């Protein structure tokens, strides 16, 4: 009985703590941003690098006196890649006064899309989410701010075309994809391009959890004998694809991966850069540590007497975190300028996003230009190649087939 009472008491205390936990008193001039993250769920290997990058950039901005004299407070909540948790987290961030939400994960972006529009709070989904949300008139409060899967597909085809000598007529391209909605999203664009460019497209689905794809890869290498592979995989599967392609004797310099199969971690897990030599990886943020912003962040840490954190070594994801934060700060700055320092709302930040143009941070960001109609900012990507122990830039920022992408954006999306 005493045991039961103790448990009951513990329960009551924890519920009480929940209801009466101190809500942080917020200063008037603070700007609150909600950051959804996943550090324990299905995509944690991404989250643990992206989110610190985000925080570091905001800390840098705050250490320099904030944006237009306003400090930025980030409310990070981990949603374990689960939708109910993401809903709760969003409501919490809204309660904290968030004027901007950094979304995380495609299912969560879809689940929150209607809510964001109703609450008039902009959310960003860089490199994932709903491709059709590039169309700002249909999804006024969703901002992909980086290349959607449609743009990535178009860019991949363009890249393959350049690699194969300028023409794709009669070539065979294999699309190796994770068999979930995100993986299938680019299919209409690829299909349209295969008609336009006259190449043969065959798709190879990798069902979740994607820890094994021997058969698909053998098919690509030995039966289909593809001229090039476009791979769109998540989680652990990119590294498996590198290993399996290698094993099946397929040259990795004929593989280009979408943005979530393109990090140092994927290469390391596949056995290191020596194994993955030649692998092409698409990026929507600059890769490597030679950017002035990153130097400033390192300097900030040193000034506090600390070593720069280890996560900075994972430059692909860390830099993406910095990029997201940088674009957010730009949007908030535009909003604050427009309101002359008064309290800003979600709608102001939305307008702020739509005024972003041409801040490239020394090459970390593409030459974005976000407008009321184009929330993607152009759909720029850059392709890097695993070469001699690191990622080496293979192309400059580019975008491809904008008319095909635009047509698909108009035609598809969520029913």
């Amino acid at each position: 009985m005493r045991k039961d009472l103790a448990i009951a008491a513990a329960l009551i205390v924890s519920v009480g703590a929940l209801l009466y936990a101190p809500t942080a008193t917020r200063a008037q001039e603070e700007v609150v941003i909600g950051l959804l993250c996943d550090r324990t769920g299905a995509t944690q290997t991404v989250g643990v690098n992206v989110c610190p990058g985000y925080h570091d950039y905001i800390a840098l901005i705050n250490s320099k006196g904030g944006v237009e004299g306003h400090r930025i407070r980030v409310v990070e909540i981990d949603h374990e890649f689960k939708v109910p948790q993401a809903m709760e987290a969003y409501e919490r961030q809204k309660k904290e006064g968030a004027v901007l939400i950094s979304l995380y994960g495609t299912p969560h972006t879809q689940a929150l899309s209607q809510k964001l529009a109703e609450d008039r709070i902009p959310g960003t989904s860089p490199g994932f989410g709903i491709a059709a949300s590039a169309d700002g008139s249909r999804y006024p409060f969703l901002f992909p701010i980086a290349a959607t899967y449609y743009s990535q597909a178009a860019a991949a085809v363009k890249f393959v075309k350049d690699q194969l000598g300028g023409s794709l007529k009669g070539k065979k391209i294999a699309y190796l994809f994770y068999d979930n909605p995100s993986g299938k999203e680019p299919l209409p664009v690829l299909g349209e391009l295969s008609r336009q460019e006259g190449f043969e497209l065959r798709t190879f689905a990798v069902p979740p959890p994607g820890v094994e794809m021997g058969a698909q890869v053998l098919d690509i290498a030995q039966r289909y004998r593809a001229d090039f592979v476009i791979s769109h995989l998540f989680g652990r599967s990119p590294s498996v694809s590198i290993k399996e392609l290698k094993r099946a004797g397929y040259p990795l310099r004929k593989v280009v991966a979408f943005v979530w199969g393109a990090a140092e971690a994927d290469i390391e897990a596949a056995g290191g850069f020596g194994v993955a030599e030649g692998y092409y990886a698409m990026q929507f943020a600059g890769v490597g540590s030679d950017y002035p912003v990153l130097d400033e962040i390192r300097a900030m840490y040193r000034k506090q007497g600390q070593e720069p954190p280890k996560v900075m070594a994972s430059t692909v994801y860390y830099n993406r975190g910095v990029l997201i934060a940088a674009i957010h700060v730009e949007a908030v700055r535009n909003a604050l300028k427009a309101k002359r320092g008064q309290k800003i709302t979600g709608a102001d930040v939305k307008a702020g996003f739509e005024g972003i143009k041409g801040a490239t941070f020394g090459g970390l960001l593409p030459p974005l230009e976000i407008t009321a109609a184009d929330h993607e900012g152009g759909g720029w990507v850059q392709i890097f190649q695993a070469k001699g122990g690191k990622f080496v830039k293979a192309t400059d920022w580019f975008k491809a087939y904008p008319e095909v992408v635009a047509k698909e954006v108009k035609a598809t999306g969520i029913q």
Partner: protein
Amino acid sequence: MIQRECGVLKTSYAADMALYPLPIARKTMVAIAVLFALVLPVALDPYYLSILNLIFIAVIGAIGLNILVGYTGQISVGHGAFMSVGAYTAANLAVRLDFPFWLSLPLGGLMAALVGAIVGIPSLRIKGLYLAIATLAAQFIIEWMINHFTWISGGVQASIEVPRPTLFGHGIASQLEMYFFLLVFVVLAVVGALNLMRSRIGRAFVAIRDHDIAAQIIGIDVFRYKLLAFAISSFYAGVTGVLYTYYLGIANYEQFQLGVSIDYLAMIIIGGLGSILGSVFGAVFITLLPIAIRWAMESFGGALFSQQAVLNLIPNLRLILFGLLIIFFLVVEPEGLSRLWRNIRNYFRVWPFAY
């Protein structure tokens, strides 16, 4: 809580058989009703209402799963998939045929019931873990079908945006409106399940759980009732999926994957198998647990660790605590929170005396 049972004189059979034989029980019921219908919605911030709404949805799903697992003794690891069946059925009806929610919601539930009954067919032959894995197979197969049949899923995105439910031309969108919308269904679900368990069907379920061969000998059509249990349970799951869809405004099967099935199992096991009240407790517990741990960490973690470390610590610690609490409850109080509640009630019944 303190239910004095002395001094109650019953003078008729009707009074003796009443649902709430004690005045205090009646008063408690009225108090709870007033609390949920009048006090909470007015007193709470929309954020807390949003948590309550998530709990409401979870309660319905947990009750449904408990009917199958706790009352009938069949295991299902596929309830997430049944929810998605309900969700997509309702979403398709609402979008393509413009069905109002009061039509698409029960139809979504019925579709899920049908699918659930089909999945339940192997339960005739197999039981225990084999059945659990067969339902796991159903989870994967249903997910696969939704992912690949665009006429179900509405396109490669496998997402269907659903308009907000409307009542008398008024859209139900805010958390407060959603609260009342969901409250109605929670009450229906609880009362429905309580009544079901007092009926012939409920008794048959329990007999099958306790010993299916013995149940067959005393004349219960085991196969029929097993399928019925699957169907009713899946109906609840389907309704959960539909409500979820209306709550979020979108149907997407990635919201109903294996992890969801497991969360619901955790709810009923922690709450108490074979107990409606337990399902409610479990749903509350599992929904609040991550939130409570996070709040505790945010409030007190800053004193011990640096900001960045806390951010990394919270989610991992939450996962660990979540697992540990599940194990703790299983080891310490196998009959779950509902048993805990009964013990406490019995203790206070005669308080301050020992018995």
